[in-house]
């Protein structure tokens, strides 16, 4: 069975190398790419089936020794336990579906082979990340994923803005990764090993001891690890790259910016949950960040007019939910929401892709109206996706989000709970608004060709998953039977707290319907007059994702550019060139003494002798 585990990450890697070096024709690339991913998906499912009954299992396979100096010894060992099994299944299944989808979506693109090579490389890096047994191997997967997202966002490299978006994504995630690297190194000095399991064991022992040892170093490590997670999963300080990352092809956004890469941060925190338990204030900070991001994402999604940017902001807010769940200590709720979110967000993105595909690359939602009749399938899939997003009852989104809200309540965090509820309200509002604008109202642009069959199949499967995904995998809860979950069994939810999350989505959807009928959802035209109304300013503020871009440009980019531009000719080099000019100046001065007059020379000779003798006499 361990060989299967070993094969899962290596298969996409082999196919990626094959595609890079061999660059076969279209059909062959599709077969290799989709084949390898679906094979590893199959392997993952097989593993699932075999390990379904065992509650607690650990599978380890070593692919080779990486480096061992003094007491730092790292190896390429893969570690499988219920958490990483779930992650592997999500990644490989969603990945396989998206590969199938993009096989037809990208078939008329000239360098398809490069696209599939990057996609395969991405999936293998993600699998290494999830299956890593030590933090440096995790970091290897982490950076590999960052690299592939950079390559895929900037896939259509001809437009300048695509490669700029790719640069922005890579640099912002790189900031998070460097913070994480510092955290890893500090962890190495704290626990003397980088093996994740040993760190968890040592932190559990530390937890048993009543007096907690040097907590501020451990909390610093946790904070830095969270910074890395925030970078990768686009949380508040480092989230401005995700909306711009929509410049890449839609399947890329579906796979990377909805299902897999952005969840790496959550996996990191979930995997090191015992370590984070040692730093309760960091967990609280994570929860706060989660809520802030959740509200930011939801409100900004309201003001967007581009279909994919709305979905990007909604991903940010759903990730905020997951971090909220992690912050209150229930990793299982977070991972469960991660799973459901992966399915319905992938569905939303892929149907959006199909929509754009048949509206021949029109992405502004106000230009697509009344597509209910011309695209019934897309309307249906979009409907299910939006329902799951808005967490209408009986959809998978409902179960996971409601679980998160319940966990926040159990963890005695009423304030955060209210934040979550407000977020849920806004989420329901913008998803309903999106659905109504795109599929109801008058038809102003006919959709030409309908979606190919491959895409339809994928959409069907994803619809099924996002509906039935609500059933919680049995293994998940036993893995995380961490004490925090059952912290306060006695505390029961008050009636109001129990029913509000159930009724809220239905109420907001009807509210949205009325607003749509009244025509509140018209695009706010920017007024020419100097006096920009408050509504205008608010809309602009939300449109740019709470203006983080302008803030960063002001604080970091402008001074950095100013200093580097000023210092282009290297002040130090200038100093050495001054040396040169000084010596030529000196030459010109001394030159004036050589007049060429013979009598001057002899006179100066005599004067010198006179002075010398005088000095001799004085001594």
């Amino acid at each position, binding site marked *: 069975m361990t060989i299967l585990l070993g094969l899962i990450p290596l298969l996409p890697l082999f196919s990626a190398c094959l595609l890079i070096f061999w660059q076969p024709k279209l059909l062959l690339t599709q077969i290799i790419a989709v084949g390898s991913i679906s094979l590893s998906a199959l392997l993952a499912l097989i593993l699932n089936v075999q390990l379904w009954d065992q509650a607690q299992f650990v599978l380890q396979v070593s692919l080779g020794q990486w480096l061992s100096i003094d007491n730092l010894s790292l190896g390429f060992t893969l570690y499988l336990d219920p958490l990483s099994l779930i992650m592997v299944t999500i990644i490989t299944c969603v990945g396989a579906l998206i590969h199938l989808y993009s096989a037809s979506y990208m078939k008329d693109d000239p360098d398809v082979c490069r696209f599939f090579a990057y996609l395969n490389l991405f999936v293998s890096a993600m699998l290494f990340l999830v299956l890593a047994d030590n933090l440096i191997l995790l970091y290897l997967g982490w950076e590999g994923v960052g690299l592939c997202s950079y390559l895929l966002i900037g896939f259509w490299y001809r437009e300048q803005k695509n490669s700029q978006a790719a640069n922005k994504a890579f640099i912002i995630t790189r900031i998070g990764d460097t913070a994480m690297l510092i955290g890893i190194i500090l962890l190495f000095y704290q626990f003397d090993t980088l093996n994740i399991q040993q760190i968890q064991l040592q932190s559990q022992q530390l937890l048993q001891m009543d007096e907690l040892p040097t907590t501020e170093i451990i909390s610093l490590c946790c904070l830095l690890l969270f910074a890395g997670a925030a970078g990768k999963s686009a949380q508040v300080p480092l989230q401005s790259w995700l909306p711009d990352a929509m410049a890449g092809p839609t399947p890329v956004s579906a796979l990377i910016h909805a299902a897999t890469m952005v969840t790496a941060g959550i996996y990191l925190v979930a995997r090191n949950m015992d370590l984070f338990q040692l730093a309760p204030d960091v967990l609280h900070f994570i929860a706060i960040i989660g809520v802030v991001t959740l509200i930011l994402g939801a409100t900004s999604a309201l003001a967007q007019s581009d279909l994919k940017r709305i979905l990007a902001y909604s991903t940010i807010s759903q990730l905020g939910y997951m971090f909220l769940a992690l912050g209150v200590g229930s990793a299982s709720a977070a991972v469960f929401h991660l799973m459901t979110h992966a399915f319905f967000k992938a569905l939303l993105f892929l149907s959006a892709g199909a929509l754009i595909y048949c509206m021949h690359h029109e992405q502004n939602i106000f230009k697509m109206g009344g597509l209910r009749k011309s695209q019934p399938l897309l309307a249906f899939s979009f409907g299910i996706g939006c329902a799951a997003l808005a967490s209408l009852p009986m959809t998978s989104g409902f179960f996971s989000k409601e679980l998160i809200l319940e966990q926040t309540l159990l963890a005695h965090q009423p304030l955060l709970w209210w934040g979550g509820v407000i977020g849920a309200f806004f989420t329901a509002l913008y998803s309903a608004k999106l659905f109504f604008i795109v599929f109801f109202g008058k038809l102003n642009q006919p959709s030409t060709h309908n979606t190919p069959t491959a895409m339809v199949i994928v959409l069907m499967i994803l619809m099924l998953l996002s509906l039935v995904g609500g059933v919680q995998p049995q293994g998940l809860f036993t893995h995380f039977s961490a004490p925090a979950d059952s912290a306060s069994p006695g505390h029961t939810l008050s009636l109001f707290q129990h029913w509000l999350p159930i009724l809220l989505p239905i109420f907001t959807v009807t509210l949205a319907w009325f607003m749509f009928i009244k025509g509140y959802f018209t695009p706010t035209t920017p007024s020419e007059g100097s006096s920009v109304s408050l509504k205008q300013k608010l809309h602009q503020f939300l449109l740019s994702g709470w203006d983080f871009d302008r803030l960063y440009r002001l604080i970091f980019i402008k001074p950095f550019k100013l200093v580097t531009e000023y210092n282009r000719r290297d002040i130090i080099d200038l100093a050495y060139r001054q040396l040169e000019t000084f010596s030529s100046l000196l030459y010109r001065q001394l030159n004036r003494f050589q007049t060429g007059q013979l009598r001057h020379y002899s006179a100066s000779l005599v004067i010198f002798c*006179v002075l010398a*003798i*005088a000095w001799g*006499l004085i001594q």
Partner: protein
Amino acid sequence: MIEAIFMITAIVCLISALLTVTAHNAVHALLYLVTMMIAIALIFFLFGSPFAAALQIIVYAGAVMVLFVFVTMMLHQGEKSNLDEKALFSLKNAKGPLLLATILIAELLMISVQPLEMNSSLVPLSAISNEAEQDSAQRDNTSQPNSVKSLAIQLYGPYRLLVIIAAMLLLSALIAAIHIARKTPKHVDVDLSPEETQLANKQQKANS
């Protein structure tokens, strides 16, 4: 008695030196210089080194000064160059060098006065013959100092290298002088008057 002779020759020497320096006419200067050299030769004689005196007269006054006379003869334009000379040098605009020279004399005298309080005096040849015997022993059998014989022995004894160097020096000076003074075609012919030189140049341009 020797003291008196020395004093006279010294004064003659100084006056003639001063005159050579301040003379306007080149030939006068030369002649004054010759008299100075002869006076110095006499002083050498007084010191009791006849060989040096003879050499001074023969080589220095005789050969070197004659060389000077030849060159002045070649370059002297007669009256014109005397007039030029007046323009080139006049005592009133030579204040600076005069001042310098006097300071220098004063300093040199101050130096010479200090260490020599022990007024040793130079003894003419005959008086010192007795002390010479003792120190002549270490030197190889020089019969008596300052005689040409002992000079020659020394010259070709310990100092033979010096002789070779002097010879080399003279030889190189000879070659250098010949080479420098050689008349190359593009030079104007020094003994032609200015009009003839233009004529020569025109011819040269014609036939080249």
